[in-house]
């Protein structure tokens, strides 16, 4: 009887109403990547509001979204099938303009027959302009849509973001998947800190921390290069590091596994290529005259990959020790540069504020309380860095 009831119930539902959420995978406009720029052109007709009237804009002004969609039937099922043609054929790039992202997405929907589906959004690219104006409104949209994954990547493009969507790398049929791989692989080999959308949001939300994003550039329409890190103060991008500074950032924030390399001069005309294996950072917080003071000790363990001359022999413990010493100085200098730069811009990407909040809650409750206040304090925070390197091995070559 129970089964009859439940069966009848199910059948009744099926016959009377049908299935609400059924939407075949090929009947969705699956957006793989999204690029957001400041719009130069005007918005076309919008389904969201009467055209021509003034609707409130976010602080970003008019936005242009460029979406990369997977085209069903164009990605060959068999890997070895080479008749598929150019990678750009398997995706479709569409753009639309709107007052906000949500508005722009609805305008985008106007171009597409099937419903927009963000469940497979792998990457969001912001133009530098958007990032500098503040990405609050973008976060607002992405947080609210349940489909968006926090494992998606978000990055800043130095030029216009839309070009990223049109780039067609040769390696992968779907350009966005290649782009995601670029980030994932660089995290895996220790060249970039793991920082996807979710972690970026966490960093932006924390009062004593600021977010940072990969800063990329598209070259020759197909290469995608990580050109450094864009760092934020609150939700506004305030600066950008050089590519080599990412390694020092990784050291300061104890990102593992190591893997980034540094080429540095040792004595006259003797260059050493050092590759990190393991990083360890130790923050020591002290209260001095009612002000916090931070001592950071960074330990980097690694190996020598190459040297530029044969004059230098690596068979002596003393030499190795002096290389370590030289490298320590370079480390300290670079760390200090990076910290000073971020301090000038008021962007605590190292999360020192969080440590202060954790260690001195009384101080925080009395003096800081808000994120903005912390940024002010951070600007004048006394931070000393000690670098300690250790060469574990020098490769197979004896000298």
């Amino acid at each position: 009887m129970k089964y009859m009831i439940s069966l009848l119930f199910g059948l009744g539902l099926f016959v009377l109403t049908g299935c609400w959420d059924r939407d075949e995978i090929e009947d969705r406009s699956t957006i793989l990547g999204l690029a957001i720029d400041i719009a130069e052109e005007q918005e076309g007709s919008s389904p969201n509001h009467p055209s021509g009237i003034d609707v409130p804009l976010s602080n970003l002004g008019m936005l242009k979204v460029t979406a990369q969609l997977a085209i069903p039937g164009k990605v060959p099922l068999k890997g070895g099938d080479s008749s598929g043609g150019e990678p750009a054929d398997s995706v479709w790039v569409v753009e639309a303009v709107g007052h906000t992202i949500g508005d722009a997405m609805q305008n985008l929907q106007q171009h597409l027959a099937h419903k927009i589906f963000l469940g497979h959004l792998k990457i969001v690219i912001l133009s530098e302009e958007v990032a500098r104006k503040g990405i609050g409104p973008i976060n607002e949209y992405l947080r609210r849509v349940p489909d968006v994954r926090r494992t998606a990547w978000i990055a800043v493009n130095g030029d216009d973001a839309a070009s990223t969507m049109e780039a067609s790398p040769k390696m992968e049929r779907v350009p966005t998947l290649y782009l995601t791989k670029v980030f994932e692989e660089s995290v895996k080999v220790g060249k970039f800190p793991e920082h996807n959308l979710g972690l970026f949001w966490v960093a932006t939300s924390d009062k004593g921390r600021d977010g940072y994003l990969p800063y990329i550039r598209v070259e020759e329409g197909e290469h995608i290069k990580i050109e450094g890190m864009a760092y934020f103060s609150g939700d506004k991008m305030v600066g950008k590091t050089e590519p080599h500074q990412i390694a020092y950032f990784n050291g300061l924030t104890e990102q593992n596994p190591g893997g980034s390399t540094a080429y540095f001069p040792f004595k006259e005309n003797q260059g050493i290529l050092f590759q990190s294996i393991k990083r360890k950072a130790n923050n020591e917080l002290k209260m001095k005259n009612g002000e916090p003071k931070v001592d950071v000790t960074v330990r980097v363990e690694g190996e020598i990959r190459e040297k530029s001359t044969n004059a230098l022999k690596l068979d002596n413990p003393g030499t190795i020790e002096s290389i370590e010493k030289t490298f320590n100085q370079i480390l300290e200098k670079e760390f200090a540069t990076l910290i000073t730069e971020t301090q000038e811009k008021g962007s605590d990407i190292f999360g020192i504020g969080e440590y202060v909040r954790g260690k001195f809650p009384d101080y925080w409750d009395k003096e800081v309380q808000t994120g903005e206040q912390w940024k002010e304090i951070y600007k004048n925070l006394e931070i000393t860095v000690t670098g300690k390197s250790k060469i574990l091995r020098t490769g197979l070559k004896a000298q």
Partner: protein
Amino acid sequence: MRFQKQITAAQVMMIIANTTIGVSVLALPRIATEKVNTGGFFITFIGLVIAFIGCIIIAALGVRFPKKTFIEYSSALISKPISMAIGMLLIVYFILLEGFILREFGEVMNHSLLDKTPIFVTITSMIIVIAITSRNSITTFAHIQYYYFPFIVIPIFLMVLISFSKMEIVHLKPFLGNNANVSNYLRGVHSVIGLPFIQIGTFILTIIIPYTKSKKHTVIGSILGILVSGITILFAVGVTMAVFGAEEIKKSLWPMFVLARMIQFPAEMLERVDIVFIVVWIFSAFTTLLSGYVLIAYISGKVFGFNDHLPFTIILLPIVILVALYPDNIQQLYDYMEWVGKGGILLTFLYPLILLVLSLARKKRGDHH
């Protein structure tokens, strides 16, 4: 025929643990951090200690009257009319709770999986499954709870384990929280124990005690049950807070759900394992709601003088659905939930405490005969 209709300590433990871990745990980190920021972990701990005490009170009462149900021994302790009146109150209270949990579950499902399906359908289909399942004996109920226990607890610990790499201990500091003062703490603890995951978990004991093997099984089972669920919840809350930090948690409706969706296994094929956690949340909602439903049906059976609970499994169905559909939106739901949950503390903690005190004072026991 050849099975002793008796529940073991392990089964008691799993019933309590399954009942306590439910949908409300998804929102728990947010509710705990709302008032005292990083002190949320500590507040959860306090809440669980209070739940533990509540559980012990009911277990102690039950052990004194091992063959009687709650309604029976309460009418022996405080005259029958008062006991019946409070019994009615309890029924109303648990129906409200059940409805709200059901609604909360429906909202989670509609937000995560089925955004176009009417909430009525989500809710009704779940409660029908529950009503069908509740038409079994208490022993089978114990077996069912036993079966789902590993499917709930193991994945949660798995989630905790995988998230370890993303944890930042600094997010848990300071342990007592920023802006932590006594009034904030009191309000925080009140909100946490007002959440409907503890009440049903402790009260379900009242109906399983007459079926347990012995006093020892009841006591050990209930202590272990609340410990296991407490540790699981604490771990889950702690990890959620450590990954997100208090500020980020406040921004999401169900932080633990977001955590589950953030998890990534290294292998590409297992890129999106949150499917596993969706299953877990459905299972845990099911076990919680099943306990609640069985609880209401049994209490109703006793209060209205029926031999068994079976008629109520059908009568309750439309009532619970109506309650679940009553709030207009999720904001209202959480408002009602807090209101009912906080009021219910009197019923679920104070009332058994009074009964226990009375029973101790009058030296009334039910296990002599």
